[in-house]
């Protein structure tokens, strides 16, 4: 089976029902997406599939077809940050940080379809992503700051 992650194609030999999350983490060594619940309740495993935020723990790798997967590593790196990551750092969002890959991927997906979301739209888009440290107030601020960056470009 071939899959494309962060513009690189990989040949993998796994069961088609294996969740994309575990293919990424254990087979490909791409550990940005995190395991939190395994049942799409926490969003820590969020990746983009053809640009849309999806829970990789619920996506059988065999169902990917030729879809393109992007993980947090493909969004931006410490020396080439995506504007959402920039907003996250400027607002010092992360505490333990474990959920933040998923939060950032969710926010990036939101802003790609809705560059100027209202408070309610932010709440709706981001409420599937759990944060046990309670970084939410800064997530809200950072999404708005990222939207502002987008408008300034």
């Amino acid at each position, binding site marked *: 089976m071939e899959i494309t992650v962060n513009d690189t194609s990989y040949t993998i030999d796994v069961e088609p029902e294996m969740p994309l999350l575990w293919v990424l983490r254990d087979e490909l060594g791409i550990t940005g*997406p995190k395991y939190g619940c395994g*049942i799409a309740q926490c969003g820590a495993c969020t990746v983009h599939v053809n640009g849309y935020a999806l829970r990789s723990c619920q996506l059988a790798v065999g169902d990917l077809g030729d879809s393109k997967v992007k993980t947090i590593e493909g969004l931006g790196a410490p020396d080439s940050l995506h504007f959402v990551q920039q907003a996250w750092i400027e607002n010092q969002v992360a*505490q*333990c*940080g474990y959920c933040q890959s998923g939060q950032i991927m969710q926010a990036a997906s939101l802003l790609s379809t809705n560059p100027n979301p209202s408070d309610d739209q932010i709440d709706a888009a981001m409420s599937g992503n759990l944060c*046990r440290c*309670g970084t939410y107030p800064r997530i809200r601020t950072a999404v708005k700051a990222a939207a502002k960056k987008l408008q300034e470009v």
Partner: protein
Amino acid sequence: MGRLRTITRRTFLIGSATIAGGVVFGTYLAKRPIKNPLLSDLQEGEGAITPYVKIDANGVTLITPRADKGQGAYSMQAQLIAEELDIDPAIANLSPGMPGPAYYNGVVMEESVPFPAYDKSAMAENVRKFMHVPAKLLAMQITGGSSTVPDGFVKLRMAGAIARETLKEAAALQSGITRDQLKTEDGFVVMPDGTRLSYTELASDAASIEPVTEVELRSQSEWKYLGKPMQRIDMPAKCTGTEKYGIDVSVKGMVHAAVRANPGLGAKMESFDASIAESMRGVQKVLPVENGIAVIADNTWRAWRAVDAIDIKWAAGPYPAGTQEIFAEIEKAVNSEEHRDHRQRDDGDVTTALEEGDNFEAVYKVPYLAHAPMEPMNAIVKVTDDQCEIWTGTQIPLFVRDHAAEMTGLDKDMVFVYVQPMGGSFGHKLEDTHVLQAVEIAKAMKGTAVKLVWSREEDMTHDYLRPGAVAKGRGKVVDGKVEAFDLSVGQSGLMADWFGRLMGMNIPGPDATITTGSWDQRFAIPNYRVTGYRAPVMVPISSWRSVGASGNGFFHDSLLDELIHKADADPLAERIRLCLDDTSRKVLEKVGEISGWNGSFISENRGRGVAFCLSFGVPTAIVTEVTHTDVGIKIDRVFVVVDVGDVLDPINLEAQVFGGVIFGMAHAMNCETTFENHTAQQDNYHAFEGMRLYQVPEFEIVALSNAEKIRGIGEPGVPPSAPSLGNAIFAATGRRIRELPFNKQIDFV
């Protein structure tokens, strides 16, 4: 910022040692040399040092022995060292170092003394000081109790200052210019003519001279990093998916393990049938372990799938089968002489005051709670004939080491614990059951590294929970004033349970956690009593963010609020009137000011509640505003005032405060761990929801600096959060909810 304090000149047992191409500065354990793999390049006879600063060809490394579970401990420790060392902590290397007895945490033990935090008498201070002795003897390298800052505030800056002055001395000897004419800046010693010598190039010379230990710490006005908004060093990695948590570590040739242990905690596995699992793809081995079974496979998912396919018969857990029976035991303990554990608050004469007349009575309850950090328990362990290596996120590295040594029969010095950053903990990683399971499996797979990751379900059904508790409150109001307050708190003793597991011994004497957060408040109630009753340990219990104060904050403040209401007094004004502690009173006054307090009524269906708790030495007051909407309670705004003494990083302080308050309110809203058939019923986040972004209120947070002692802020936001919400719900609806979680009786938006 707080008032300027003079730091007395003192000589710490901090010295230096030579390493290949460099120098380390750290704590001497002169009479007890310990092996330290980080310093395996130490020269003969120079091993007796536990480092905070290491300088060699790789640059400057700041060593941060308190673990980071999200609270920013790595950054803060590095910044404390860097402030005196004069180096940008963002360009230095950071390392958690290897666990060592000299990294003992003296302050964490201070919490267990029978004196409230506001007691600054010579007696109380002396007893606190003596708690550092067992901490040292027991080698308690523990991260917890909001103690990283108070424990490291002087120690870490002193290490930085000694390193700096010694580097200057080395430069002085090289140049013939006296040390007092030299300056330091960003990792360089600067000569009067502007010539710059890097710390790295001075390292060898610095190692060959006597360290300069007579140093004076800089005053607050000279601070460059501390006291100003700082950037957390781990932030870029955490925002780019490049931070490596324990669960992300990969060791060459490792295999993956899954465990299914008896959900009847502590009971045996009676039988199993693994015939299907054994033939599944990728499965290498099925292995019975203590109270359960493990599968070793070539990836995590295959191991989990196979362990799911094993048919297992469990023995029943050694405690009452259901929550109702468990709470019946706790209720039985309350007010029973046989179960009386301690009474540290007994002002006036409660018995006489409540003998007759119109007494108020109420019963309050808090549930058992899982920690449920986002990163589930995990560990990688590799055992060979000679050594045991462990990669895991832990708050108790030396206990992990000692337990692994015992299990493998290896010398403690041959067990190496590589502490990893944690994706949350909230106290769960004060336990090491998962690590020891991995050791057990690795012993059977000698020479191969084994990575064990608990599924979310395994994690939440095998936790050591925040103990459930019941409190019976009584009181009396006379002439519009609270005349008597009597709180009887019953729960199991978590310290005894935890110490028993960690040290294999029974801890005699009272268990302070039963009433921490209630007996140690300071109010001028004429007849004021708090008694702790100890129920037997049933399901295993442990520390959960803010420990005893997590439940006691709710009990104490809810009862106080009810009595104040009965007295027909203003909730805030009356707390201020009753408060005997200056620092605490100022916190209450400030929260009134920033919240624009003018009574608990805001408008129809809107109300505000105030709550206060002094925990971990930090007085914390919260005002919460809620609206009673058609679909439930909406939390609108939350105002928090704390006093930690000097604020080292206002940005991270604010994060810890709203994080703590959200943590406390989230669980108060909708979380509990209940038991049926001896088994925890909430095994994933769908049943243990917490707070979601759309429910998060606006926050306004102020930190005062009137307190004399510097304090940590990881936990104090938690205890007053539930009562402030409960008191606000009462203000908006007229309904007093005395049992958590609130959503059993009222909906939330």
